[in-house]
């Protein structure tokens, strides 16, 4: 087994605005099973951060427990990270975000970490609208503990154990929509052309962005009768449409046919171009998104792509009216404004 990735890279590797190559966004060599979808998710995150020219030291990776939650080790090796306890990533993310609102927060979780033990935390972090990317690498099982069916496994789906799952599945996108997420999307680890722009858009979105990525577990849940194996997903995938992400700095060079696409401008000025398959779809219609997911599920179809987006949603700091700068930047004068300030407050309450 090779534990060291060679240090040589392609001499003509592209360079981003910061002068970095993809290599600067890599992590250490993955120890996941060969062919695990989670590794593709890591690669998509690396690509997205590279293309957005994000400074690695401005990013914090947070995760819970599971194979998926291990992946932050395998990307963005020069960024900050916190591998927390099972299902508790949202609390850690909330604390970190409140302390320093200037960082970019990437939460990585699994279907077990989010839909079982962490379901409560998941619902509440969405309700609060924490400004972060919350990505679930969803393989329908507890990969790390040898492949038990998870709460997102479809009823009747058969993993390597060979027994059909008797329980109803939780659809995390539907739940995110119902609890108030302002960006909801679904991707597939085997389709990076779709996944990378979704991640880029989510990273630029101000507010809570949720991406459910179907990410097959090659070892325990890639059977011909599993609804989360490569084959089934490829055969049953449908997309809301194609999407292009244009960051603020870049000039729009493509020619968009009027009417065929919808443009959504994000808070930071970058633009999403949607080429919708169904012209009647409205990305800002929460109810329609939920219905759409439901009808696809009934037809045994997996709906992917950008499902819902509200670029102007209120994020947690705005709701709470917190200070504008990270706590670490507050000086003694801010923290201890003195007796005159106290008197003024007291006076105002009289």
């Amino acid at each position, binding site marked *: *087994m*090779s534990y*060291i*990735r*060679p*240090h*040589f*890279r*392609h*001499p*003509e*590797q*592209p360079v981003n605005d910061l002068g970095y190559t993809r290599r600067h966004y890599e992590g250490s060599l*993955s120890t996941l*099973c*060969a*062919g*695990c*979808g989670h*590794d*593709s998710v*890591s*690669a998509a995150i690396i690509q997205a951060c590279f293309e957005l020219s994000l400074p690695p030291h401005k990013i914090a990776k947070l995760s819970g427990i599971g194979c998926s939650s291990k992946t932050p080790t395998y990307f963005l090796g020069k960024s900050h990270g916190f591998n927390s306890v099972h299902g508790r990533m949202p609390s850690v993310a909330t604390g970190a975000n409140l302390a320093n609102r200037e960082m970019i927060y990437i939460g990585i979780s699994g279907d077990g970490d989010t839909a079982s033990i962490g379901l409560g935390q998941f619902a509440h972090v969405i309700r609060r609208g924490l400004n972060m990317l919350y990505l679930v690498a969803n393989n329908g099982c507890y990969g790390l503990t040898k492949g038990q069916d998870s709460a997102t496994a479809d009823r009747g789906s058969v993993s390597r154990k060979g027994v059909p799952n008797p329980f109803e599945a939780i659809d995390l996108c539907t739940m995110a929509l119902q609890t108030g997420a302002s960006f909801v999307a679904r991707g597939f*680890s*085997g389709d*990076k052309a779709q996944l990378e722009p979704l991640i880029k858009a989510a990273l630029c979105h101000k507010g809570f962005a949720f991406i459910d990525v179907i990410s*097959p577990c*090659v070892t325990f849940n890639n059977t011909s009768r599993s609804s989360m194996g*490569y*084959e089934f997903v*490829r055969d049953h995938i449908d997309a809301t449409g194609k999407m292009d992400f244009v960051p603020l700095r870049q000039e729009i060079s493509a020619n968009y046919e009027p009417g065929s696409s919808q443009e959504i401008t994000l808070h930071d000025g970058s633009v999403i171009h949607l080429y919708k398959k169904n012209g009647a779809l409205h990305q800002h219609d929460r109810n329609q998104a939920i219905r759409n997911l439901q009808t696809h599920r009934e037809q045994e179809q997996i709906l992917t792509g950008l499902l819902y987006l509200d670029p102007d949603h209120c994020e947690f700091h705005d709701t709470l009216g917190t200070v504008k700068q990270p706590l670490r930047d507050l000086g003694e004068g801010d923290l201890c404004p003195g007796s005159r300030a106290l008197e003024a407050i007291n006076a105002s309450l009289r």
Partner: protein
Amino acid sequence: MEPTNGKNPEYFHKVVDCQYACPAHTAVPEYIRLIAARRYTEAYLVNWESNVFPGILGRTCDRPCEPACRRGRIEPEPVAICRLKRVAADFKDDIRHCLPVAPERKNGKRIALVGAGPASLTVARDLAPLGYKLHVFDSLKAGGGFMRSQIPSFRLPESVLDEEVGYILEMGVSSHFNRTIDSLKDLLDENYDAVFVGSGAPRGRDLKNLPGRKPGNPYIHVGIDWLASVAFGHKTSIGRRVIVLGGGNTAMDCCRTARRLGGEDVKVIVRSPFKDMKASPWEKEDAIHEDIPIIDNHVPLDFVVEGGVLTGMHFEQVRAEYDANGRRTLVKLNQAPVFYPCDEVLVAIGQENAFPWIERNIGIVFDKWGMPVLDPDTFQSANPRVFFGGDAAFGPSNIITAVAHGHQAAISIDLFCQGRDITDRPPPHVNLVSQKMGIHEWSYDNAIEDDPRYRVPLVEKQLALGNRKLEVELGFDAAAAYREAERCLNCDVQTVFEETRCIECDACVDICPTDCINFTANLPEPDLRQRLRVPARNQDQDIYVSANLPTGRVMVKDENVCLHCGLCAERCPTAAWDMQKFLYQVAKASEWPLNAEAAESPGN
């Protein structure tokens, strides 16, 4: 683009850049691995099989493999392929018992070889074990050709030359030294079944018409003649101030030899810009290291002779200009001529072929440049009994090219003597074997080392300049050889893709350190090359394209900077990638056994 045909041996051969570039197609990575395993004797034999003179070539080869080496595309310098060859030769055991022997019973065919240079010796090496009776003729007193008369001993010690020439002559070859062939017709009349002309390109160019050439004659020498006189001990000294004219490897050998014969102020003066000089970069380096300035952009005007004594030379200063096609013209700067004083001049401005001993009425056709017209694959001349090879075939080249010619000419001579069609060439031997030992274990060392190229240590300069026979390079020791060998990327361990197994999980794409692998829609080659993660701009390198996969895409791998690290195959959950060692051996003149009934012909 059509899917790649992995069954065509040339596809994977081309991936092994060094072997592909070697005129004799030496299995380079195979011998480098053997060196890393300290199996020097086997490493030597892998070389000997292909290039016949590993000890000589490990010191002197022109190394076309090194500029081709893949390592040179991912970091500044290629693997020291040539100097590792020397390691195999230096550290091997006695190999005599491993070499083929000439059978007692001959096959009845007699072959004459004119010249005992590397080309003829290679023909002898291939034909002697098959029972041919070989007669080699050379004007010199010993075998080796230019390797003996031209290449100075400080680069190639006589003992190494004697050993490797000896291996061949000892295969029962009849050598006729001090014997110049002055008529090919007479030789053919001796009823040889075939004649091989390996007489080299023996004539040095002169500056016959430059003013002062005649009166200065005692002080002006043609480089290759002078080197031969030094090699055979006829010349043992030179004036204090020496000018060497020319920018090729001969000029480099002349100036370095002059330094050892008493030349204290030795300069190389060359017409072209430094970067355009024909000499290999390392030869220029070696000359500069021995305090020899190289003065470029100077065209000789005249020799200045005063009172019968050469006092110096005048030069015109020029500047190089290149047209759109890169063609060069030297433009005069129109300044006053520059004078360089000197005591002697060595003219090393090139060599020519000369065949005054070949009659023009014996069926051999010569072109307008006086070169024999040959079939480029068989080396046969218009007289079917006469074959050419080495510098005599297509003009001055190098040892490894002469060897490659010799192998091919031997095949032709063998087929010809059997009355077979000599254009029906035997195919190469190829072998493709999986290196898989376990789930993540390979039978080759797939770890990639970061070390930059190791330098070969030299003897102390003052010692070297004091003795023209003292070898300058000391060679790698075993430890440095191991480290250098570890730099090799094992380009013969091929990434072989089996599309029916692939589930398009992208794991190989994500792990590949050098972005070789892609899954994309198929397109015509130029568009496909543009579409890759890193566009495949190196047109010399092929791209490996699969048949259609279930999603309708194809796998496209750019071979250009693949490290052969095997990570793609380790990461693939379905073993759609496998690492397979590809062995490619050029066929030799031994593939078909001869008719054993033939009796030894009388009188030999």
